[in-house]
């Protein structure tokens, strides 16, 4: 199996599984507890049907959408995800360049393995920085200043990782950052020698936004769950978010909003967008899926801020359904991470291209030529 055989999400997943040491694959692939929410994130899309309109003349399709004041060529983007150089030695460089090629947003994680400065010098398309609110206030303000200096377009504060989720696959495989060789994981690292060679020869593994302040994650191996629980500030509240929003002074979003009340409060503190997200099912298992919750949230705040549906996206039709309900755009992590692991930048480009082609085809089949043609009349919820 190689990149040419990848026609969809599941194919990329398979190829990624072949290429990655199993602790790393399962870090991407796994979720919290029994992974109920993780599965629901995608299956929720199947409870609603698309109802197309015919004979509308659909030669030219415009997929562009505007979020956070930036016009993107696609109504979906690469959500910020941590530790990308563990998945492919080019990491964020590969994803960023692929996103630039398709003129869509690239989200950079606080736990990124390439610095905001380097990314800013590499790509000139819209960029989002994902912020973790650390106990160390010095770290927080230093990161904010660097992101400002690097002229990122959007700041997104993650609000659903106040403590680490119970990712049981990571407990079993012993996944940590940086990766640690244990007796049980030894075989899986040895059996993927290319990964090992690249990891050791293609530049030192770093967390450039954090390593001047904390040892964990770079020189001290830690699980991501542990990192959240010990490094992030559990007393973070709406005041802190409001202050960060005004300190940033630009487009600001809360990532991980699930309730209508919180969505309204996000408007009140000056946010210009929210990501309806449960962190890809990796935090609170049994929590509601973004798509199931989207309608209520759009009804409450959709005319005031940009609502992004994040999580579970595996198909163009999933994006179509979320946009029909009123999301301004969709985003996801796994939707490009498996492709990154499978083949670096070429993999991510192939994945983004497939989603774009699917969307374009699906728009034609729906009888729609532009994103604003999509509305709830296109949908029927099953009883």
């Amino acid at each position, binding site marked *: 199996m190689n990149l040419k055989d990848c*026609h969809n999400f599941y194919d990329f997943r398979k190829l990624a599984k072949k290429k990655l040491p199993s602790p790393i694959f399962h870090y991407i692939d796994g979720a919290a507890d029994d992974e109920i929410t993780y599965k629901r994130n995608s299956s929720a899309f199947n409870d609603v049907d698309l*109802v197309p309109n015919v004979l509308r003349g*659909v030669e030219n399709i415009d997929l562009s959408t505007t979020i956070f004041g930036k016009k993107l060529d696609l109504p979906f983007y690469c959500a910020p995800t941590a530790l990308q150089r563990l998945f492919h030695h080019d990491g964020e460089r590969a994803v960023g360049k692929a996103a630039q090629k398709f003129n869509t947003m690239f989200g950079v994680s606080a736990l990124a393995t390439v610095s905001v400065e380097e990314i800013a010098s590499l790509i000139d398309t819209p960029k989002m920085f994902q912020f973790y609110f650390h106990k160390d206030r010095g770290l927080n303000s230093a990161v904010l200043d660097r992101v400002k200096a690097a002229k990122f377009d959007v700041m997104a504060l993650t609000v659903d990782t106040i403590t680490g989720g119970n990712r049981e696959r990571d407990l079993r495989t012993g996944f940590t950052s940086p990766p640690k060789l244990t007796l049980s994981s030894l075989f899986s690292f040895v059996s993927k020698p290319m990964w090992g060679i690249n990891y050791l020869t293609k530049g030192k593994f770093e967390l450039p936004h954090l390593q001047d302040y904390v040892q964990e994650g770079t020189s001290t191996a830690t699980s991501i769950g542990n990192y959240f629980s010990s490094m992030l500030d559990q007393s973070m509240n709406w005041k802190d978010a409001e202050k960060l929003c005004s300190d940033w002074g630009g487009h600001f979003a809360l990532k991980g909003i699930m309730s209508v009340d919180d969505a309204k409060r996000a408007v009140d503190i000056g946010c210009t967008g929210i990501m309806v997200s449960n962190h890809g099912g990796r935090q609170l298992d049994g929590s509601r899926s973004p798509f199931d919750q989207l309608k209520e949230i759009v009804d409450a705040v959709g005319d005031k801020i940009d609502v992004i549906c994040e999580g579970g996206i595996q198909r163009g039709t999933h994006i179509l359904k979320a946009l029909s309900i009123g999301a301004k755009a969709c985003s996801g992590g796994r939707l490009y991470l498996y492709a990154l692991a499978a083949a670096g930048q070429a993999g991510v480009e192939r994945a983004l291209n497939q989603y774009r082609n*699917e969307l374009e085809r699906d728009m034609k089949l729906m009888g729609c030529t532009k994103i604003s043609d999509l509305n709830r009349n296109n949908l029927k919820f099953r009883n």
Partner: protein
Amino acid sequence: MNLNDCYNFEDFRKLAKKKLPAPIFHYIDGGADDEVTLNRNTNAFNECDLVPNILNSVGEPDLSITVFGTKINMPLFLSPTAMQSLYHPDGDKASARAAEKYGTIYSMSTMASFSIEEVSNISNGPKIFQLYIHKDQSITDDLIDRCKDANFNGMCITVDTIVAGNRERDHRTGFTTPPKFNLESLMSFVMRPKWVFNYFTNKKFELANLKNKTDKGTNIAKSVMEYINEQYDPAMNWKDAEYCIKKWNGPMALKGVMSVEDAKKAIDIGCTSIMISNHGGRQLDGSRAPFDQVKAIRDAVGDKLEIILDGGIRRGTHVLKSLAAGATACSFGKAFLFSLGAGGQQGVEKLLKNMREEIKRNMILMGCKNISELDSSKLIYRK
């Protein structure tokens, strides 16, 4: 296993799988993307229950209905399907003769492997023609004129293939017309020498209705999907459909209508019928199932349109449920293609006999003497 062992859809499917090379079997069997809609088309029937009336002195029920201005002996007919000679060398001739024998409609695809004239020479049974509107209008005009000369009873314009669906099984098997032998699929051809023998000893594969107008799909090993994308007009609109209706000047359906709004428009432009269909789940995955949508459309159009439910039909009870929910008749493609692959004309006859017996038995069990007695009072939807 042979034809005598075929009692139901699954049996015909199994036998067809044994007889057909894998790429060809999967071309029939597959749907778009994740095949969610393909599966839903049939599963939708299970969310609604039949409620029989007893002691009705039913006797021998009358299964006849009138559709496309033609009285047929059972409320189920053969959907138009392309390239039937890939499934059995007799192709459309076998299906047309079988349909005639059971007094029901044979439908010819624009992409049939025998021509309008060839089939009308061997069968006097009721026939409709499925029209694709081509970019080159002279092809469309020519087809309509020839159907008039051949005394076809009705026509339908397919409106849900504005672009080819994403049929991933075909990507994997390398399905093209005529079949392209690659190393991977070669074995499945080698294992079915009889199919290969028939393919090479019978009439050369061609798109018989189009051979004088285009060399695509005949001389060139081109996939059906590419043909659709190149030859069908994505700018097709209501005016184009209206033009064909006027030119035909007889019973005309739009095939692939799913929304209430479009069903009403179909009346306005002079259609006598619509076929509620998502192209057997082969185009827009995640779109609504015909059975889920039929009631809403019937409620909206009253008796101004004949409604043919196309998609998911595998059992006599599926037909009964469709008629009770508001359909005038049903049609099916996959089921009869498997029977054609399994045993040519004899196979299709066996299937039609099975279905007639099932419909008849179930009518008796429901306490209905004729089709018009099947109304919404006979159904209870589960919530």
